[in-house]
């Protein structure tokens, strides 16, 4: 019986010849990442565990991104304390409020490599499976244990394999693929499992699109999403001056709990409707729904490719009167590329608000909070009740194509008929 990529990575990290799904192992973590709002709790936990120094100041990476720049006195105090911690601990990699959203920056700065065991004190850490890492989100006390010891316990997950065949139609995006998959698997259908994304459609996706897929694995309960590394992975990483690459992938005869196949050749744009991420409908069922605000950004869809997709619909046009459009590049590098290639001008000319990189608009921390009775359309990852402001607001999730086309018309709009 062959092994899954998760079994291989967790065996290597736990120093075992072989581990199998269902086993609990203690493993050495290769990389630990923390954003601002979970760092202090983790740091306090580490100290309460009796350690004063993080286990490895090159493998602990900290970001100020959720409330960046600080939006309140409380946030400013957290940031001050995190900066002090980074300085005291001599962290080699500390990203202040000017860098961007942790997951985007971690990948684009070349910190993640295939085969790594990555933990992050943020649930969307599963994003890094797009680079062939086993990457999973943990809470602050788990992170405290990692800071103190470099180790953590893991239950070796079973694997669900999602095979996406065919070629994506024009104006249908990786986001539509993952929304369709979540709609089928359900919000808890992959709990404690790893979800491997494979098939022709995934092979032909750039790393950017694969990050969108893996990012939302948590929205079906998964421990991680993961894509087998290939030439696209190595080309992405190669540009980022990484060290040696140890690609790991599942054996052909590895045990899968479930295989879900879909042909994306006839996939329509998908929309996750309020207020659950698995309440997914084809666009035709929600077309014409009034919207007050559109948000394009986040660790799900704030990359250059996403902004370029959005710009297709906004070039030379105006955001519909009465609709607010927020465009938030996921990182400084994304922002710079968008600026140099003219995308930022397209957005500003169209009437969009272009905001500095942060997580604020996605999690209701700041930026574009929705009032009671308002409707938001977002390219982010969660539409939970109250997620982006009032519990009486509604949030729909869609691709950057759908979001931009809808910003122009003022109602949820099928992008395929709008260019």
């Amino acid at each position, binding site marked *: 019986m062959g092994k899954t990529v998760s079994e291989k990575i967790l065996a290597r990290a736990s120093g075992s010849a072989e581990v199998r799904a269902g086993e609990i192992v203690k493993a050495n973590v290769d990389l630990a990442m923390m954003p601002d709002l979970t760092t202090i*709790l983790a740091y306090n936990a580490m100290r*309460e*565990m009796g350690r004063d120094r993080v286990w490895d100041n090159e493998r602990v990476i900290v970001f100020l991104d959720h409330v960046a720049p600080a939006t*309140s006195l409380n946030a400013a105090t957290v940031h001050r304390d995190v900066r002090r911690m980074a300085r005291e601990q001599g962290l080699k990699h500390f990203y202040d409020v000017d860098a961007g959203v942790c997951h985007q920056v971690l990948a684009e700065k070349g910190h993640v490599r295939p085969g790594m065991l990555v933990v992050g004190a943020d649930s969307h850490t599963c994003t890094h499976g797009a680079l062939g890492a086993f990457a999973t989100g943990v*809470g602050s006390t788990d992170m405290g244990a990692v800071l103190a010891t470099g180790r953590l316990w893991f239950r070796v997950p079973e694997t669900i394999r999602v095979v996406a065949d065919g070629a994506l139609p024009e104006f249908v995006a990786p986001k539509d693929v993952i929304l369709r998959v979540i709609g089928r698997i359900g*919000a808890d259908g992959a*709990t404690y499992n790893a979800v491997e994304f494979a098939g022709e459609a995934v092979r032909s996706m750039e790393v950017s699109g694969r990050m969108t897929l893996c990012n939302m694995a948590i929205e079906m309960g998964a421990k991680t999403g993961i894509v087998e590394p290939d030439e696209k992975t190595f080309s992405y990483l190669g540009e980022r001056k990484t060290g040696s690459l140890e690609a790991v992938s599942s054996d052909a005869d590895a045990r899968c709990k479930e295989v879900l196949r879909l042909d994306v050749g006839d996939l329509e744009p998908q929309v996750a409707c309020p207020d659950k991420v698995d309440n997914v409908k084809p666009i035709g069922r929600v077309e014409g729904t009034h919207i007050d605000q559109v948000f394009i950004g986040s660790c799900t869809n704030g990359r250059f490719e996403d902004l370029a997709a959005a710009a297709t619909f906004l070039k030379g046009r105006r955001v519909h009167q009465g609709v607010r459009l927020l465009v938030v590049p996921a990182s400084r590098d994304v922002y710079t590329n968008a600026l140099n290639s003219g995308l930022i001008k397209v957005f500003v000319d169209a009437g969009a608000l272009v905001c500095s990189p942060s997580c604020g608009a996605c*999690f209701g921390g700041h930026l574009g909070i929705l009032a009671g009775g308002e409707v938001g359309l977002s390219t982010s990852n969660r539409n939970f009740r*109250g997620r982006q402001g009032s519990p009486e607001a509604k949030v729909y999730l869609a691709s950057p194509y759908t979001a931009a086309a809808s910003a122009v018309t003022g109602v949820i709009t099928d992008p395929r008929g709008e260019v």
Partner: protein
Amino acid sequence: MSARLRGMAWKFGDDVNTDLIMPGKYLELVDPREIARHAMEGADPTFVKRVRVGDIVVGGRNFGCGSSREQAPIGLKQVGVATVVAESFARIFYRNAINIGLPAIECPGISGAVEDGDTLEIDMAGGIVTNVGTKKNLKLVPMPRFMIEILEAGGLVAYLREHMDEWMR
């Protein structure tokens, strides 16, 4: 962790996510007492005023789905919730709850056997939850030994202080 718990049930539905348990705008708070003022605010803004020490939160499927924010179980523990019993839990919430010493107990069928305000008795060792009013008994899903040890220590911090050598092996 005491072997027997008795408390009043607060019943919630399926997919109670971490934004309902602890809205994102409060994540800037680090003092558990301040965090506690907002426990369950997204699901029931009156919860904090009415909950009493020893009460039991009853959830449906996928309790605690969403974010990795540990502020969610911290808020529940700090207001005195003795345990969360649910049909099933999301992975990160489950780990976080155990890690801070708040028992998260899986119990298939609990949603159908409990109404808001019912009194529940939980026998941890025997693995049984009883609805005192209806006398209905349900079985708890047994927890791995390792997690029971963390709970018995009072959470992962205390566990690691006691078992650091073993942890590093």
